[in-house]
């Protein structure tokens, strides 16, 4: 479904990704693991064309996304829920969601999508008219996820959805991610939170210093010491 | 280290220029250029080097000009004392000015200085008992010949350039540029940014204030609309700065020369060339062209600003290497 091959990405003269390749198949949950600064967010930004690679390609359902301007990526059925949620703080919850459905198809189904999402996130329904900036961190994350789903994507990318959340909220967010996947949306997840993600993912890749150093199934990873080394340096 | 000979040659040229160029008209233009060098240098120090874009240079210019004029009209002291005093009082006004404006950064700083500029102009207009309002103040000119004014203006211009040059070579200069490049980094390097921004503003105010006092002495007449003018002084100061080269020692010199020259070329229809062509050929449409050209001098300033900002963002001196490259090697894009 999504095929990333040989990505090299630099910010000015600072190269952050070195020959990164990976693949996501339809219906999967794939996790990109890695310590801070390893290049996870950059990878996602490159996939959604916010950052242009120096070499390499991003292919999604037969289209070369790296050749598409970033605002058109969503038309191909790929949504990106960015790190730090990035809601529109002065707009209400509902408006945030609506802005997620600006593509033609999504717009046509806006009403039903909204109802569907309010079913999934009953908590948001209570806060439709509240400015997004006034919500708690967990609620904001839910709005961000829901906003991503509003475009009815075939694949959705989450960038550290558990960041800065209390442990209980983290568990809940991951439940949501699994649920989204059960609804038939393929998921590409970037996380630090190793345990949760590995337990639920189909496959995982490890990024270290801008390079993919490991790949395999979740089970394989749970028992691999390399992860621990990458994270804790022991 | 060998001293660069360029500035020295220039100095000699400027010193003997009025002796070669006896024409009072060109001497007058040169005096204006030199006055703008001082204003431009002052603007450049706070804006170009310290990075705090000043939209209110006229506040200091007007203050210096009024200091000189009031000395003469109210106290009967020679307006020439206005040169040092105008500078000093401009520094005094720079303190509250800075206290207000330096709470703000970037464009907000710029707007605050613009607002203060306007406030000063209004006060000078309304406070008729002191300033005579728009009736203005007359100061009798001391000399008939242009030469004394020329050399005073030259001295002020040299003083400005040398001051800025010396400051920029000193610790202060390093601090000013550090503040421009990154205020947070500067703070964490132990630089009291507020203090040094204020210092920079004070030096700027001093130079611009002296130029204002020179204006009073030379022109002999001031009113609030002339010396506190947003367009003729504040914006013009910015133009001199950015056209010549932001953050360069000799940028204001080049900028002042170009701005005065452009104004005169347009105003006079290419120093009479168009007129001459019109007369010698007898083409009737030449007079129309002359009219349009002479009306276009402010338009040309506007276009100059747009072109410089888009293509020479660092001004003529700042982007000199770029210009030279494109002149020498015009086929290839100069980057």
């Amino acid at each position, binding site marked *: 479904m999504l095929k990333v091959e040989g990505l090299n990405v630099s910010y000015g003269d600072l190269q952050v990704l070195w020959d990164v390749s990976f693949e996501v198949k339809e219906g999967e949950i794939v996790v990109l693991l890695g310590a801070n600064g390893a290049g996870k967010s950059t990878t996602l930004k490159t996939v959604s064309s916010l950052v242009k690679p120096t070499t390499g390609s991003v292919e999604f359902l037969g289209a070369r996304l790296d050749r598409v301007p970033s605002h*058109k990526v969503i038309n191909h059925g790929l949504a990106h829920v960015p790190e730090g949620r990035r809601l*529109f703080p*002065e*707009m209400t919850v509902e408006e945030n969601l609506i802005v997620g459905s600006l593509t033609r198809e999504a*717009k046509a189904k806006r009403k039903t999508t909204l109802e569907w999402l309010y079913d999934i996130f009953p908590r948001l329904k209570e806060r439709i008219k509240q400015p997004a900036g006034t919500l708690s961190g967990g609620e904001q994350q839910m709005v961000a996820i829901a906003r991503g789903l509003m475009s009815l994507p075939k694949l959705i990318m989450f960038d550290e959805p558990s960041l800065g959340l209390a442990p209980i909220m983290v568990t809940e967010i991951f439940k949501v991610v699994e649920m989204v996947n059960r609804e038939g949306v393929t998921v590409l997840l970037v996380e630090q939170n190793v345990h949760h993600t590995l337990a639920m993912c189909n496959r995982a890749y490890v990024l270290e210093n801008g390079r993919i150093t490991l790949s395999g199934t979740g089970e394989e990873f749970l028992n691999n010491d390399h992860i621990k080394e990458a994270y804790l340096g022991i | 280290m060998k001293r660069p000979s360029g500035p020295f040659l220039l100095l000699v040229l400027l010193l003997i220029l009025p002796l070669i160029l006896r024409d009072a008209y060109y001497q007058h233009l040169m005096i204006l250029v030199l006055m703008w060098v001082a204003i431009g240098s002052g603007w450049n120090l706070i804006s170009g080097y310290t*990075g705090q*874009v000043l939209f209110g240079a006229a506040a200091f210019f007007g203050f210096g000009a009024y200091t000189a004029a009031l000395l003469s009209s109210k106290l009967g002291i020679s307006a020439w004392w206005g040169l040092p005093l105008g500078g000093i009082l401009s520094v005094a006004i720079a303190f509250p000015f800075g206290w207000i404006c330096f709470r703000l950064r970037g464009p907000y700083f710029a707007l605050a200085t613009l607002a203060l500029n306007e406030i000063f102009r209004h006060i000078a207009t309304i406070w008729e008992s002191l300033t005579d309002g728009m009736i203005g103040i007359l100061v009798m000119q001391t000399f008939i010949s242009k030469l004394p004014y020329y050399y005073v203006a030259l001295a002020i211009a040299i003083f400005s350039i040398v001051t800025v040059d010396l400051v920029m070579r000193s610790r202060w200069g390093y601090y000013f540029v550090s503040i421009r490049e990154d205020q947070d980094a500067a703070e964490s390097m132990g630089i009291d940014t507020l203090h040094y921004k204020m210092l920079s503003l004070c030096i700027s105010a001093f130079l611009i204030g002296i130029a204002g006092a020179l204006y009073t002495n030379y022109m002999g007449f001031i009113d609030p609309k002339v010396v506190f003018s947003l367009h003729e002084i504040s914006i013009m100061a910015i133009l001199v700065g950015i056209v010549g080269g*932001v953050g360069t020692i000799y940028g204001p010199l080049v900028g002042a020369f170009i701005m005065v020259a452009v104004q005169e070329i347009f105003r006079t229809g290419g120093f009479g060339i168009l007129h001459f062509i019109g007369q010698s050929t007898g083409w009737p449409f030449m007079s129309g062209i002359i009219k349009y050209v002479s009306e276009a001098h402010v*338009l040309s300033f506007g276009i100059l600003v747009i072109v410089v900002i888009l293509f020479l*963002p660092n001004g003529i001196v700042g982007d000199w290497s770029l210009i030279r490259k494109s002149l020498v090697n015009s086929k290839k894009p100069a980057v």
Partner: protein
Amino acid sequence: MDVFLQTLVAGVLKGGLYALIGLGMTLIMGVMGIINLAHGQFMMVAMYITYVLFHFFGLDPYTTLIISMPSLFLLGVLIQKYLLNPLMKVESILPENQVLMTVGIAMVLTEIARFIFSSNYLSVRTSYSSSAFYLGGISFSVALTVAFGFACFLTLSLFWFLIKTDLGRSIRAVSQDAEAAELMGIDSGRIKVVTMGIGAGLVAAAGTLLLPIYYLFPDIGGPFTRKAFIITILGGLGSTVGAIFGGLTLGLAESFGATYIGMDFEDLVGLVIFLLVLLFVPGGFKRFTKV
């Protein structure tokens, strides 16, 4: 009491017009982060368009809105597309070069107007230009009241547009988080162009509405640019509701200043309030409006 009420009415009516001027500037500020120092000059251009249509084609000034607003929209679009957007890529020592660019644009617009129309004062005289009606001894200028009404209407339309349409929501999204907006499929470059157009269109409306009671010459832009940025900062940068508060505040401050301090101080009062707000209420009146 009459003096007070008449001052109040004068301030509110003028404030409505100011709000309209400030709204466009605020919108531009919010989305582009640019202080548009050519805003008053946009207004001047619109006034000339109205003048020409009235003078040569006999169109009523109010009907010329349907031409002046789209024309200025186009002007704004062209300026953003060909002068301001390319500037994003130019690296310069002074980050304020966008503001300086708008100063250059303002000069060029003014001088082009002078080229075409000379410096003469021009005006548009209609039957309602100098008529007034009275409510309890308080006089309401017909044209100013109509202008106020139009200003309210346009303001409400703008709100409707910003809140209810996808394009409006996109504009707000870009102003709050441009990168996130890109991820939602919004072309922020295009939104900037459109926003500049809308901002110019709004101030065009203000100019056209003002013309029947005022007059016109090329340098009229400068004072209105100054008023516009005062309003924008009073209102809290980028806040549309704030711009209305800012406009009314400035209108009232000027009127009450003129009545109770002195007409000399009219402009001064505005400027001093501007500085005070800038210094002591960093968010402008946005702080008190919560929107």
